[in-house]
């Protein structure tokens, strides 16, 4: 449990699960808490250390998730995910990954995505279980049932509102705003407007102190794509010189454009291998210019190497020896920034009998191992993600079917090879303890070749359902 001082009182600021079951509540006087739970372990809260830890966490998020991240003291992190989520497989996957990673390192986190910072702030704290994604253009309906505290109001103001009978955000929204301002001051309406997106709320992105960046302010705001491209080229060459001096190569770069209406637009590109090649980085950013909305014009552009790694100089051209294989790093980068890092991969073998488990994705630039699958057992060119049920006429226990119906078409089997019996991997899953699949390679009258299997050995019901499935197609 954490204790802190509020005025002259010592109160409970945070309590863990065990303390909560003992009846402790946040905001309770410390003396009362100690009576409720004798043997309570009390730690003094250290707001400064908390803020520092939150900053570190924000930098971690910045390096992994999105170009614009700010610490939202005392307990939150704001991420501007526009234009960053598709690189993580969409908003849902990004949030699940974020919360999962934090949980793995011992943080219980909740997260929400919404149209405005105010709405996301409220939903993350009062509605997320543990993640929540508000649909685009969600409007006020999603906020209405939340309690008033979700609006980020000072305690005094929210308790005053409670006294007057306002409990939910919806109650306040239903009131005309002018009298509210007269009665409670501008703070309440400001928070409401921020939550609804009627008032801009720019976030001040966090910058780690040792980050290498290049900045350029323009005398006249710029908006044309060509001008932006020129500015980007200028910034990258500046940044790459700085990187080269330090012997670093950038892995992830962020371009922040501050517009004259004080909104920031961010673009992030990633590189598969560290690099300080200005031409290449400029090209990656120029591919993304169309995603920058310059509004009424851009005042300041900042290019930062969010993640940089040491880069040893390497001899690339040698008069002796044969020409090295073409470098595909830049192609991988271009494609990864187009479709996302996970959508470009190589496939490596896994020692597993189950065909669907015999492959895994590895990064496109992972070192080559030369490992391969056994060439003795024929494998199809296309494998269905899910085996498809087929109706068959077959002799049991170990004959291939004579006729089968797949996708509504009846086919007569002319030739067949098999069975190739695969056993379940009992060391991985309990249910596969005695599972068996008998695979057959069959050819129909037209010459099409299929890979089918019977779930089970044809005799013992414990080994499977004895149904037939079509799993892949041979060429």
């Amino acid at each position, binding site marked *: 449990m954490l204790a802190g001082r509020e005025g002259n009182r010592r109160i409970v600021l945070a309590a863990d699960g065990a303390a909560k079951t003992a009846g402790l509540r946040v905001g309770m006087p410390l003396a009362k808490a100690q009576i409720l739970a004798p043997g309570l372990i009390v730690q003094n809260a250290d707001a400064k250390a908390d803020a520092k830890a939150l900053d570190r966490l924000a930098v971690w998020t910045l390096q992994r998730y999105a170009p614009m991240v700010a610490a939202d003291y005392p307990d939150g992190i704001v991420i501007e995910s526009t234009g960053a989520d598709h690189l993580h497989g969409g908003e849902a996957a990004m949030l699940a990954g974020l919360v999962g990673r934090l949980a793995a390192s011992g943080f219980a986190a909740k997260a929400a995505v919404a149209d405005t910072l105010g709405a996301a702030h409220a939903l993350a704290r009062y509605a997320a279980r543990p993640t929540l994604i508000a649909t685009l253009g969600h409007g006020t309906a999603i906020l209405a049932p939340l309690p008033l505290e979700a609006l980020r109001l000072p305690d005094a103001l929210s308790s005053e509102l409670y006294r007057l009978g306002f409990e939910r955000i919806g109650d306040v929204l239903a009131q005309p705003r002018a009298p509210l301002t007269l009665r409670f001051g501008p703070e309440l309406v400001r928070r409401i407007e921020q939550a609804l997106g009627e008032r801009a709320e720019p976030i001040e992105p966090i910058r780690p102190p040792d980050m290498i960046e290049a900045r350029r302010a323009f005398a006249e705001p710029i908006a044309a794509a060509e001008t932006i491209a020129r500015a980007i080229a200028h910034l990258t060459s500046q940044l790459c010189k700085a990187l080269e001096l330090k012997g670093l190569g950038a892995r992830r770069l962020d371009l922040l454009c501050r517009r004259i209406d004080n909104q920031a637009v961010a673009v992030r590109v990633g590189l598969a291998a560290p690099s300080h090649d200005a031409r290449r980085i400029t090209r990656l950013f120029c591919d993304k210019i169309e995603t920058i909305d310059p509004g009424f014009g851009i005042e300041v552009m900042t290019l930062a190497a969010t993640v940089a790694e040491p880069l040893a100089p390497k001899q690339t051209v040698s008069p002796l020896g044969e020409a090295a*294989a*073409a*470098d*595909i790093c*830049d*192609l*991988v980068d*271009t*494609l990864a920034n*187009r*479709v996302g890092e996970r*959508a*470009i*991969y*190589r*496939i*490596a*073998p896994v020692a597993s009998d189950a*065909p669907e488990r*015999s*492959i895994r994705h590895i990064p*496109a630039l992972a070192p*080559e*191992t*030369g490992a*391969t*699958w056994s*060439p003795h057992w*024929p*494998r*199809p*060119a*296309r*494998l*269905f*993600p899910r085996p498809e049920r087929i109706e068959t006429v077959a002799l049991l226990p170990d004959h291939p079917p004579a006729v089968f119906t797949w996708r509504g078409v009846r086919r007569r089997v*002319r*030739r*067949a*090879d098999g069975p190739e019996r695969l056993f379940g991997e009992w060391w991985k899953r309990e249910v596969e303890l005695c599972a068996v699949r008998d695979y057959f*390679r*069959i*050819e129909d*009258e*037209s*010459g*099409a*070749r299929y890979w089918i299997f019977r779930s089970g050995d044809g005799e013992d019901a414990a080994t499977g359902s004895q149904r037939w499935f079509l799993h*892949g*197609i*041979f*060429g």
Partner: protein
Amino acid sequence: MRDVRSEPAIKALRAQIEQIEGRRRARSTLPFGIAELDSRLPGGGLAIGALHEVAGDGGCGAAATLFAAGIAARAKNKVLWCVSRADLFAPGLAQAGLASGRVMYVEAGDDKSVLACMEEGLRHGGLGAVVAEAARLSMTASRRLQLAAEASGATIAIVLRRGRRQAGAADFGAPTAAATRWRISALPSSPLPVPGIGRPRWRVELIRGRAGEGAEFELEACDAKGRLAVPSELVDRSDAPRARRGGASA
């Protein structure tokens, strides 16, 4: 019928056309290693630095996939394979000679981005082959790809047409800028003296070829190095392998 390919006047005319088209250097080709097939293709093989279109006969087109894999396997350098859905089975491709270490897969959402990724791969110039799976290929898109492939000069571009069953040659769709157009369909495998499935066979149809004639072959599928073969009982026949004369030439 006389063979127009050997006519000297035609040859001179062809050289003249190539000069007008601005291709000074001789374009390199990737031979199939099958004389009948290579002789049908200008330059004695599949042109490198050009776009080729391959279609299957059914929904999945596994034979067409392996045909493309075999070509990619015989090309040098790395291979980029752009897909819209991930149902390729890498062990199967490895058995057609395309080692998994050589292939990079890109999963792009739709046809448009698949073709955009393909173009990116072609423009890079350092790849041996780029294969893209697309249901549709418009004239404009194919011309872009063809130009990108020509500019690279070292990459074979293959568009694998997927989609609904195609009934005949006329149904293949609108014309495209591809240098050759193939259709691969599975045939009953080579007979074995024992029950079982022999080496798979394909009907390989060269539906359209730039500066060449259409033809049809019955071939044995890719071996572990990606090479096709002529079925043994056809090799020894006195009559030349069944090559149909007189398809559409362009």
